[in-house]
């Protein structure tokens, strides 16, 4: 057991930092206040990711067959950490390299790979994830958006909600219902967002402009070849994808960086002498580091090629605890940060409060830990 990065890993981190230093604009911090899915940041990401691709930093963790450097999970972690601390200048494209690309590679048809992987590797495409529906949130398997096969086309009707990036995305990774068999009746369809019959409506939110949307599907027609995997295979594929997604966002690093920033500001105005403030700050730091180690323990399992189970839920919940503590610390001791005094802390707050909801809520993580880590007898259904 050892907790140090290798020299190569340190060098890799420096390479990313140098790149960020050279390629983020001077007013980046103010700029990144725009949500990760805002038009401004999405437009920025479209040129930024192209540059990342040019220097081999867009998907270095992908296998060599996929055009990557085959660097592995620790390097993916380092890349994600540095990007997330910087306010995620890749915008929604982080999803492409974390899970959409690898999922396409594993389950896609040759035509789907040819069509979609290439733009991802150039840093030019944006996806959205059409899973949640108004009546299917935590209980995702109850989703109702229908896809009916008719004359070689799927006709799609229904509604998605909370869909990040939908406003500007090129393609939707869409979950649809093709039969009434709960989990086995769900099928993935890859839908170009400019297909007639799709309406996207932005939802005003606390987390930054343009981040979440409603997406309506009215007799949307796509060819049968847009189906991804087999009919009814969605649940298996999504389980695979989300395992990658859960590790995708190292929120604890931004929380820790935000905490350091807050302490710096408190020091500057002479307010970091009060003992209870210092103790509270240390408690936040410990929670961030705790989340970090829990996440690293999961990455280690990936490195060792072991199946990742419910311990990723435990790491997620540790992250929620850290995010919450840092958000509360800033509000209590630096309230002006959310009113213009610190774009960085405001940006963190907007992203931090999401930790316990997006990609599966905190309570759902606790349910999973109870059943699959502690192995408590199951709740009656």
């Amino acid at each position, binding site marked *: *057991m*050892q*907790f*140090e*990065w*290798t020299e190569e*890993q340190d060098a890799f981190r420096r390479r990313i930092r140098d790149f960020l230093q050279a390629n983020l604009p001077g007013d980046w911090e103010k700029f990144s206040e725009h949500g990760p899915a805002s038009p401004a940041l999405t437009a920025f990401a479209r040129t930024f990711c192209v540059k990342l691709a040019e220097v081999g930093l867009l998907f270095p963790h992908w296998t060599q067959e996929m055009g990557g450097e085959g660097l592995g999970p*620790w390097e993916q972690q380092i890349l994600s950490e540095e990007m997330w601390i910087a306010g995620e200048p890749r915008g929604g494209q982080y999803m492409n390299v974390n899970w959409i690309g690898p999922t396409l590679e594993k389950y896609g048809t040759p035509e789907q790979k040819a069509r979609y992987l290439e733009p991802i590797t150039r840093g030019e495409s944006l996806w959205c994830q059409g899973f949640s529906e108004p009546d299917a949130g935590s209980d995702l398997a109850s989703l109702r958006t229908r896809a009916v096969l008719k004359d070689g086309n799927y006709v799609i009707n229904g509604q998605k909600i909370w869909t990040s990036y939908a406003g500007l995305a090129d393609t939707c990774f869409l979950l649809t219902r093709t039969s009434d068999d709960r989990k086995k009746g769900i099928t993935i369809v890859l839908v170009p967002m400019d297909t007639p019959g799709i309406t996207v409506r932005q939802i005003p939110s606390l987390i930054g402009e343009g981040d979440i949307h409603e997406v309506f599907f009215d007799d949307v027609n796509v060819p049968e070849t847009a189906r991804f995997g087999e009919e009814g295979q969605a649940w298996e594929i999504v389980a695979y994808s989300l395992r990658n997604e859960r590790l995708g966002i190292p929120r604890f690093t931004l929380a820790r960086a935000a905490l*350091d920033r807050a*302490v710096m500001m408190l*020091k500057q105005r002479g307010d*970091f002498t009060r*003992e209870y403030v*210092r*103790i*509270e*700050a*240390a*408690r936040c*730091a*410990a*929670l961030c*580091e*705790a*989340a970090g*180690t*829990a996440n*690293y*323990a999961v*990455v*280690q399992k990936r490195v*060792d090629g072991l199946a990742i189970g419910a*311990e990723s839920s*435990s790491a997620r*919940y*540790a992250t929620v*605890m850290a995010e919450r503590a840092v958000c509360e610390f800033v509000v209590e001791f630096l309230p002006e940060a959310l009113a213009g005094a610190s774009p960085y802390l405001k940006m963190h707050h907007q992203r931090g409060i999401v930790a316990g909801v997006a990609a599966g809520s905190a*309570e759902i*993580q*606790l*349910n999973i*830990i*109870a059943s699959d*880590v*502690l*192995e*408590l*007898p*199951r*709740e*009656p259904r």
Partner: protein
Amino acid sequence: MQLALNEDQRQVLDFVEALARPFASAPLHDAGLALESEELDAALVENGFLDVMTVEELGPVTAALVVEKLARLPFAVEAAASALVRPLIDPELPRPLCLVEEGRTSALLRFLRPGATVVVVGPSGVRSFTASEELIAPAQEDTLYAYPVAFLTGLPEATIAHDVDPVEITRAWRVAMAAEAAGLLGAALTSVVTYVSERKQFGRPLATFQAMRHRLAEAQVVTNTVYWLAMRAAASGDYADAAMALLHAQEAAKRVCYDYHQFLGGMGMTLEHPLHLWTYRLKLLTAELGGRGAQGLAAAEALWG
């Protein structure tokens, strides 16, 4: 970064496990809360398990792993200070080791008994002496802790000064306590999980009620991270890491002890159930080195000055 156990570590833990097996369940006890076993202590010493830190290929992480593992036993063993602090002062110091902060020598001391080595750590340095009968005042007989405890009545005239940095010793002390707490938290959680999974009310196991499931799941999250922060602090030797590890451990102990007894209902108030053997050690550890506040201040100082 390599968070899996290496071959040596796995072997050492397997040995400890085998040696500790006869001590894995608690004999019924009705007087006093602390369970000790001379036999277990002797076996640990004989097999060198308290000295693994000084073995080059093992080192402090392995020592922390051993301490964590031993803390899971229902028996209280003075392993933490001996395995993780003693090697930095003088590997030959007679056990048990009682660490005490300068200026707080009237504190309740774990494992204090005639022949124990008391180490006083503080700004003026690190000094030690062997506790003699006259220097020890017993605590109340039915003391509410699952460690053997006693008080010092004073300090002897002559003490041995050790040429070591008290800051470094305090760091190792924090790591030792965090590792011990990690094991206690793990064992207490397992014990409660077993009980509520078997105990039925309203026709179903208590563990099927979400009010319990969520609190236990949160306890799992903090227990897991106490373990990782303790191991990382052992590995890094970093002052901030050590302070955060003990802070997090003391936060966790405070958070879970009450709940755990609550979840056992009336059984949680008895000596029949072994839960107290872990929680009533944890309770005392929440006070170690000045408690959460002191750890927080130490961590803040190390992190941000």
